[in-house]
């Protein structure tokens, strides 16, 4: 049972990073990114490609980040000509196109079977030390990402993002280039998501297109909405809560529930959780803080 919780905590740390990256884009930049999982996929497939080509871990990380940056730039470029809602649909569509291409391309991505056997991090250590080392690494990276995000939103760039989020006309009138701001935060969030994807790939030793289903994007959205949009601590709380709940879904079988019900429980819980919070607690568990107070 201890191993199980160790595993859950490691995954929650990775999802915490993902939630932080989406929070930068949506919570502070007001960017309705429904294709966030594709940025994560850039990181995981970057790791997989470097593994199959035997380019090493660092190359895999850099490749994943480079893919994520390119996709984030493409997303930003699309946003230049589209309204917020249409852009959201476009990001969802691109993420789906990417997943379908990855499913059908075999030479580089392994097709529907994906790529397995990636070298797990700390594989040179004996179990359970290796698992402790992984948890320590993920926790440190999550803390570093949190510190970076906090630094960013408290900086003048963070102020500019908040002004753009709430009063775009005022921001423009003061000389802020909204396109540049959106691109900056899109790429920054993309890099974090890419790193999370790389870590995920090397934790599970497997990369496949099913990891990039659109429901995964809404899983991350659920973490952000439930934890508290525009609150970096909140979205980490959301990531841990949702990860713990979802990890326990398979145990519903013990309640003699139909298998179909259990398999549908995960997307149902994500959807229901988002809906409940949007209706009754739209600011999430920990709302954004303004002048030391939650608003």
């Amino acid at each position, binding site marked *: 049972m201890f191993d199980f919780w160790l595993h859950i905590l490691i995954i929650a740390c990775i999802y915490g990073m993902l939630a932080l990256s989406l929070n930068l884009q949506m919570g502070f930049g007001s960017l309705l990114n429904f294709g966030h999982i594709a940025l994560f996929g850039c990181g995981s497939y970057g790791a997989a490609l470097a593994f199959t080509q035997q380019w090493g871990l660092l190359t895999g990380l850099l490749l994943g980040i480079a893919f994520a940056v390119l996709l984030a730039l493409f997303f930003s470029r699309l946003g230049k000509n589209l309204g917020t809602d249409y852009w959201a649909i476009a990001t969802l569509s691109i993420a789906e196109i990417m997943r379908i291409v990855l499913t059908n391309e075999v030479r580089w991505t392994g097709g529907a079977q994906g790529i397995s056997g990636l070298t797990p991090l700390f594989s040179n250590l004996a179990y359970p030390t290796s698992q402790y080392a992984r948890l320590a690494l993920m926790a440190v990276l999550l803390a570093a990402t949190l510190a970076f995000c906090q630094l960013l939103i408290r900086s003048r*760039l963070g102020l500019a993002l908040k002004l753009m989020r709430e*009063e775009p006309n*005022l921001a423009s009138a*003061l000389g802020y*280039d909204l396109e540049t701001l959106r691109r*900056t935060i899109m790429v920054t969030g993309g890099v974090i998501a890419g790193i999370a994807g790389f870590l995920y790939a090397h934790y599970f030793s497997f990369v496949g297109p099913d990891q990039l289903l659109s429901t995964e994007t809404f899983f991350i959205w659920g973490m952000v909405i439930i934890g508290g949009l525009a609150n970096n601590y909140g979205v980490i709380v959301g990531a841990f809560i949702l990860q713990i709940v979802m990890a326990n879904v398979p145990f519903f079988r013990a309640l003699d529930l139909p298998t179909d019900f259990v398999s549908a429980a995960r997307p149902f819980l994500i959807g229901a959780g988002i809906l409940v919070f949007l209706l009754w607690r739209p600011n999430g568990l920990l709302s954004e803080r303004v002048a030391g107070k939650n608003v």
Partner: protein
Amino acid sequence: MSEPILTTHELKKAFGAHTVLDGVEISVAPGEIVGLLGPNGSGKSTMLNVISGFLKPDSGAVAFEGKAIAGLETHAIARKGLIRTFQLPSMPHRMTVRDVLRAGSREGAGLRAIFQRGAGDENVDALLEQFKLDHVANQPASSLSGGQKKLLSIATALRAGPRLLCLDEPTAGVHPKLRTDIVEILQSINAQGVTMLIVEHDMAFVRRLCTRCLVLDRGAIIADCSPDTLSQNPRVVEAYLGKAVKRGGLKV
């Protein structure tokens, strides 16, 4: 005479069949405080929107400090030093007054400067005090009264380093006492070398503050005079009160 800081030439803007600006020509010299007046619907706010880049003109030219700016993006115009405020200044709900003021300056608003805390915030406290907003500095900006929002929008615009400040009805809905404060503040800003173009309805405010008035009616400038002679200008009187007609031998 020094080169104008702002000129417009044959500026035209129409919304469908409705022509709002019909070949407007204005010129503003450095250091002036020019009032842009006119009855409702005369095109004042459209004029400000076109000058500041929020609307693209159908034809004509706008030059700021001798350089053409018509058709440029809003932020590009603002970066040249032409900063505007809005008639109904909407302020962020999730930012404090102090943070909105801090955001007025773009200095350090990039990824490279995220480790520099407090950079570029030197005159924030002084501005809060000057604009009598120091006691509400840590409140959400949206919670301010209409008059305080106007003050905050002017203070924020000042942080952007304007050489020409375009104010859209800075006293609309503002308490009379606060209007006096705004006049004094704007005079002190002007004394520091900031030129102003002010859209305004309040004639007393215009007389106290402006050095020259331009009157817009039906998309054209009908008067360019000093504030004191406005009421003697028959075209201005006609634009505001309508044309005198004779009924039964009486002029009404």
